[in-house]
Structures are given as C-alpha cells and as structure tokens.
C-alpha cells in the first residue's frame, strides 16, 4: 500500500485550509466587535445584528433574493435534468455538439458576457414585441436559470451515465413507454443528483451579483446588489453580521445533508448485505 508522507501532507493541508478559512473566521469574529472599525477589536457586542434587523432595505432585498432563488432552483432543476438526460442517453443526434456546448459554456463563461448578452436580448424583445416590459424579477430569473441549469445538467448527466442502463432496458422490454421509464425508473434513481442540483442552483442564485446587475430593474434590488453597493464604499460591520448568519445557515445545511447521505449510504449497504446473505 502506498502511504503519502504524513508530516508533509499535514502541513500542506494545514496551510491550504488556513488560507481557505482565515477570511471566513475573521468575518465571524469581527461581526461581534462593538467598534465601528472592522479591524480593531473593542469588545463583544451584538449591535450589528440588531442593526441588521432594522435595516429594511436589506431585508426587502433579502426577501426578493429568496423568492428568485426558489423559482430559479425549481426551473433550473426542471430544464437542467431534461438537458442532462438528453446529453447522457440520446447518443449523438444532429446538433449534439452545439447542444452540449451551450450546456457546458455557462460553467466557465465570464458572467459579464452572459449578463450583457441577455440584457440586449430582453431589450430587443421589448422593442419588437413589447414584452417583457422593462426589467425586473422575470429577467433576473431567466438569467439565473441560464447559469444554474448548466450545473444541474452536468450533475445529472454524470449520474445518469454511471447508472446501469439494463434497468431501463428491462422496463422498456416489459412494455413501458420511454416517458414512463424516465419517470418511474430513472427519476427516482437520480433523485440525489437532482437534490444537489437544486441546492446548488439555490445558492448560486441567491449569491449572484453580475447577472443581477445587468438584468435588474428599478425597484428590484437583490441582496448581493445591496451588499456590493455598500461594500464598495469600504468595510461595514453590518455586512460581517450578515455574512455570519449566511455562513451559519450554509454550514448547518451542508453538514446535515452530508450526514443524511452518509446514513442513507450505510443503510443501503446494510440492506444489500442482508439481501445477499439470505
């Protein structure tokens, strides 16, 4: 068995994780600072958290972001699963390269490019068809879906590819229609991939700044837009408090989901062992 050098491994990972976590830790620590100076410790206080609760602009923006993120997560899971399944199971149809290119590109393409191009599309649509009228929640939603559906499609595609095709073939042989096979056999099997796609879409949408900046209209300001406009002016302890709340929610969520998956995996292995021993 190959063993990697322990001390070297520890120091590499130690330094790496310090680099990844020091900024986050500093955010959390200074969110409890009573001073307005973000870099000088003056004493423990919760004043920035209470300031957060009185900040109606911020709360309204957070509410809007939450609504868009929920809508985005459902829509991108719907279209992303559809696209991912086609990529995995439909072989090389005419236009396959174009199709897979359009699915893969938003993963890497700089967001400013997608932002301006979608904005120009909506402006042209309004000019020629009178719809959508102005920009707002709908246009932001489309932008976010365009970004997130790629992530969902990639996750679903790789999950479907590693799945055993013989189960679907058996169902087809027994006379089920392809549509029924997808909903009764495939969908339950890839449910975990769809779950992670949903969560990823939700977080990507709630965090998106660049697409929202291009696609938002007057009166539709999402949380990242508010945060950005304030952070641009310098440090702001209220943002530390907001960040801490955000980080706490995400950490609890990610750990809970991970625990759930580990437990499920364990139960599955136990069931399989039982089944084989009988």
């Amino acid at each position, binding site marked *: 068995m190959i063993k*990697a050098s322990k001390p070297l491994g520890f120091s590499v990972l130690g330094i790496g994780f310090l680099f990844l976590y020091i900024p986050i830790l500093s*955010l959390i620590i200074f969110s409890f600072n009573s001073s307005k100076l973000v870099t000088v410790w003056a004493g423990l206080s919760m004043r920035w958290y209470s300031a957060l609760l009185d900040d109606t602009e911020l709360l309204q923006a957070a509410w809007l972001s939450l609504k868009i993120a929920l809508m985005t997560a459902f829509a991108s899971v719907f279209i992303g699963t559809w696209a991912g399944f086609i990529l*995995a199971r439909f072989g090389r149809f005419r236009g396959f390269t174009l199709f897979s290119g359009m699915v893969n590109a938003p993963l890497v393409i700089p967001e400013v490019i997608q932002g301006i191009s979608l904005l120009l599309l909506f402006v*042209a649509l309004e000019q020629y068809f009178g719809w959508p009228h102005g920009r707002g929640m709908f246009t932001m939603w489309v932008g976010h879906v365009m970004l997130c559906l790629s992530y969902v499609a990639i996750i679903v*595609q790789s999950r479907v590819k590693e799945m055993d095709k013989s189960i679907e073939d058996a169902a087809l042989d027994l006379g089920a229609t392809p549509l029924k096979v997808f909903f009764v056999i495939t969908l339950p099997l890839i449910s975990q991939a769809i779950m992670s796609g949903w969560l990823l879409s939700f977080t990507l949408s709630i965090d998106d700044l660049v697409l929202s900046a291009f696609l938002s209209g007057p009166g539709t300001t999402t949380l990242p837009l508010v945060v950005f406009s304030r952070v641009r002016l310098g440090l702001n302890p209220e943002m530390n408090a907001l960040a801490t709340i955000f*980080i706490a929610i995400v950490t609890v969520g*990610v750990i809970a989901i*991970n625990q759930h998956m580990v437990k499920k995996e364990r139960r599955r292995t136990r069931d399989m062992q039982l089944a084989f021993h009988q």
Partner: protein
Amino acid sequence: MNTTLKRYAPLESRPRSGTGRLKAILLRWLPSGRTLAIVPPFAWLMLFFALPFVLVLKISFADQQLSVPPYTALLSFEQGVVHIALQFGHYLFLLQDDLYVATYLSSLKMAGVSTFFCLLIGYPMAYYIARASASTRNLLMMAVMLPFWTSFLIRVYAWIGILKDDGLLNHFLIGIGLIHTPLRLYHTDWGVYIGMVYSYLPFMIMPLYANLVKMDLALLEAAYDLGAKPWTVFTRITLPLSKNGIIAGSLLVFIPAVGEYVIPELLGGADTLMIGRVMWDEFFNDMDWPMASAVTVAMVVLLLIPMALFQYYQVKELEGVK
C-alpha cells in the same frame, strides 16, 4: 379474417379513407418522440444563450445614440432604399487604442498568474486529500467545498479587512516584527491575485481530486518496487496520469478569471486593468452599449480557444465514464 389481414397489410394497400391518409401524412411529418424530447431544451438554449450572442455581435456594429434603446439600427428603409449602416469604428478603436491592448494583455496575465498559483496550491492539497483514508477524504472535500457554498461576494469582502493597510495581515506582520511599514496590498494587483486564487481554488481542487482519487495505485507500487525514488514516481507517473485533471482545473479557473469583475473592483486599484471591468464601465458609466458589445465580442474571441478546449475535455471526460 378480413380485418386481421388489413391490419397487417402494408401501408400502401390499405384502403385510403380520409382520416387514414391524414394519419399517414401526419406520421410521416410529425417529429418522433425522440425529437420532441430534444427540441424544448434545445429551443430554450438557442433563445437565451445563442441568440443573445448574435445580438451582441449586431449591436457592436451600431452607434451610440440618446434614445431607448441607446443604439442606432443597422438597417433602415428610406424612400425605397435599404440603408445598411455598419460601424466598424469600435473594433478599429479596440485594436488601435493602447489602453485596450494593455487591458487584454493584463487580463490574460492576471488570469494566467492566478491559474498558476491555484495549481501550485491546489495540486498538493488535492493530492494529499486523495491519498487520505476514505472517511477523511469525504470530510476534507466537504471542507474544501464549504467556502464555495457560502457567498462569493462575502468571501471577497472578507479580504478587504485582511489586506488593508491597517488590516489584520499588516497588524500581524508588524506585531511579530517581520516588517515595519505596512505592505500595500489592498487596491493593488497583489490584492486581486490573492482574491482570485482564494475564490477559484475550489474549482481547481475539485477536478484534480476527482482525477487523483481514481488513479490506480498499483502502478505507483510497481514503480516503487522497481526502485524508483518518490520524486521520480511523482514526475514520471502521477503527474502525467493527472494531466486531464490539471487541464480541466486550469480551464475552470482561467476562463472565468479573464472576465472577472467583482474581485478587481473590490480588491484592485484604479490602475488594475481587467477587461470585464472595462466592459462594465463602458456599459454602466458611459452608457455606450455598442462599445461595450464590441469589448464583449473581443472577450469572446479571446476565450474561444480555451472554451473549445474545455468543451473537448468535458465531452471526452463524459465519454470515458461509460
């Protein structure tokens, strides 16, 4: 008897009632279920991904004007004559203006250097995570992914407090007596490098880890048994075998980094030239949509080769899964 015969008779010999013929025609021209399944997502992507690019290209040839929308039409119809007005000026300007040329080169340099440092930090991390025990592996990868799940904007913001002249890093370094005057990092290119490496590191580690964890350790064992030194095993076996992971990770970092806007805006100085930032300013501050479109087209051209490479490896990777 007659009915069963009819049912199995070829299409041509069936008596052609009106509806029967209609059905035959419909069956010939209606798309199959397969096509019907492909078309909706395809159409969605064409409408919201491909068509917008065409519009960007179109508007990059228009002129700025004070109206809604703020650009001129390319085609106009006056007195029975179609006028086509194509403005090539933006592209000429892009090619001739020193500032734009410097911006391209600077974007490529910033993205390239960031990618290099991501690889330098990410590879050893991915390597040691992949060689840890299965349960530790899962935990460590979760720790890598956790920052990625928390807000990107907030993580960049965190660096302001660390890098400022009176920030945490300078306090610390002066405190331990390593330096006497604070380092200028905030609002410089260095701040941008640190922010980019930090933000994109998970994108580098993920594909590298996926690649390294699948590696057949028997190969390495064989090399050790034949007397190779650890460094030789690494450079001759591990490194070449992880080539695809390195390429995938580097592209995942490099391509978005070229067009990055938030990090140079928050951590960079006024003289930090990045093409995404220039485009943003043209668009939001100067309201020059045609010029912003031309800069976008130039950015797409700049990224065409890396994007094609990415697509190639993405398809190859998924065909390998089979």
